[in-house]
């Protein structure tokens, strides 16, 4: 059987424009939340978010490093974040100089939950106010979800499978899981896999606020608003950014002497068949996804050391926790579980991929990131190590990463260290 390992990482997050800055700030317990600066929030019920910071910020993102000026003008932010994170991952994997043969066996599976909402908003107004002849010729391909994979393949000449998952907030996890399968099936030897989102625009914030999904009660305390498992939680804080990993067939990675971060050993998928935005009240879908991932990994509950929870800071947190307890045991068999959304907000289609990178770094550095703002843990959290407030040094050899999305779509990934 072909095994799949991770050999490169890339991140653009509200805590940094690269992997190490994001990780350092996450472990230090920093929050990426603040008042929205992108647009005038007058009249919005939610006025806070976890924005990717501008390049002059202490931990800002510089789009000029890897994305052509012309492309930056033509496409929405989620594509810029995705191209940059993919470039970081390729550089980290030492794969920027591939021969033609390898390029035909290297593909892309980088998705997004929503895609180019800012551009759709702007061009829609443009259409109505100024007419069809003023709509940008780059409107369509600058907003389409599969255009991260498209742009990355063009930039680096990658002619393997070109794929893009769209499963709301499960996108990042599904992208990695699907890409791993493509390598297992022999469709490719190398895949860039991940997810991206950039919907901190008036329409995106208003839409999620109207769906009663966002925190709207702590606009004056942005860094306290994302508080998974806390009794005072009241909706998620929107984040943005991208996570991309290089997945590679194990023998291929070994033969070229690549640095191997982890092996993707389990992937589970399910549907809730319940409600468009609310999770199944008993977390049945979540449980099915986790059990499938464990079975595929050939692992038992006690093998998991760290769970990066979906944990969005909504009422669904404790539903997920109850499902995790049914799968791993009431004390999670000694595993620690945290929600990094407490620090970077909810990156929607980017979440699963960014969190997969955090899981990998937890194994590399033997430390698990904290759940911020967990001052007053909700009922049902007793006896579970939710890593409140501060990061925790501990043994981490295998990780479980959960992602659940609107429509009732669930994905669980299990990765482990390679000896």
């Amino acid at each position, binding site marked *: 059987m072909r095994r799949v390992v991770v050999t490169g990482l890339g991140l653009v997050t509200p805590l940094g424009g690269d992997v190490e800055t994001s990780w350092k700030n996450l472990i230090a317990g920093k929050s990426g939340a603040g008042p929205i600066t992108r647009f005038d929030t007058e009249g919005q019920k939610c006025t806070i978010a976890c924005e990717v910071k501008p390049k002059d910020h202490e931990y800002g993102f510089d789009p000029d490093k890897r994305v*052509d*000026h*012309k492309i930056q*003008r033509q496409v929405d932010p989620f594509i810029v974040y995705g191209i940059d994170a993919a470039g970081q991952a390729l550089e980290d994997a030492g794969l920027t100089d591939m021969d033609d043969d390898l390029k035909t066996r290297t593909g892309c599976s980088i998705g997004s939950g929503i895609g180019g909402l800012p551009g759709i908003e702007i061009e829609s107004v443009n259409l109505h106010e100024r007419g069809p*002849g*003023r709509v*940008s*010729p*780059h409107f369509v391909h600058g907003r389409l979800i599969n255009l991260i994979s498209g742009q990355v393949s063009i930039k680096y000449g990658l002619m393997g499978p070109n794929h893009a998952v769209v499963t709301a907030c499960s996108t990042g996890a599904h992208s990695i899981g699907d890409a791993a399968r493509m390598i297992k099936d022999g469709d490719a030897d190398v895949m860039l896999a991940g997810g991206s989102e950039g919907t901190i625009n008036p329409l995106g914030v208003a839409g999620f606020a109207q769906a009663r999904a966002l925190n709207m009660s702590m606009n004056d305390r942005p860094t306290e608003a994302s508080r998974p498992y806390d009794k005072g939680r009241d909706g998620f804080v929107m984040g943005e950014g991208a996570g991309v990993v290089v997945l590679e067939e194990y023998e291929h990675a070994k033969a070229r002497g690549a640095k191997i971060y982890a092996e993707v050993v389990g992937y589970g998928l399910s549907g809730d068949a319940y409600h468009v935005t609310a999770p199944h009240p008993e977390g049945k879908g979540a449980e099915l996804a986790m059990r499938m991932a464990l079975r595929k990994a050939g692992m038992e509950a006690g093998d998991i050391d760290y769970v990066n929870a979906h944990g969005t800071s909504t009422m669904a947190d404790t539903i997920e926790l109850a499902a995790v307890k049914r799968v791993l045991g009431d004390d999670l068999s000694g595993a620690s579980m945290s929600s990094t959304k407490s620090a970077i907000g909810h990156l929607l289609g980017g979440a699963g991929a960014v969190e997969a990178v955090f899981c990998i770094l937890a194994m590399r550095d033997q430390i698990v990131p904290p759940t911020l703002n967990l001052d007053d843990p909700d009922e049902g959290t007793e006896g579970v190590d939710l890593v409140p407030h501060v990061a925790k040094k501990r043994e981490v050899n295998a990780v479980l990463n959960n992602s659940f999305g609107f429509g009732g779509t669930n994905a669980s990934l299990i990765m482990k260290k390679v000896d």
Partner: protein
Amino acid sequence: MSDTADRVQKIVVEHLGVEADKVTQDASFIDDLGADSLDIVELVMAFEEEFGVEIPDDAAEKITTVGDATKYIEEHKG
């Protein structure tokens, strides 16, 4: 450089992300400045906006160099 040529050059630099000194009147949008057909559609829209001229599709198709654009605008602006 005429005022029109100067403003055309600025728009081309901004839209295509190229160095200003490459944007000569002889420069071909596609062969010299790395534009594709969609970039030209976008440039024509920007010229229309900047100079308040209308550049119909059949005229736009004949604009292949920076000089073609400058000449068309000079001849048609109000």
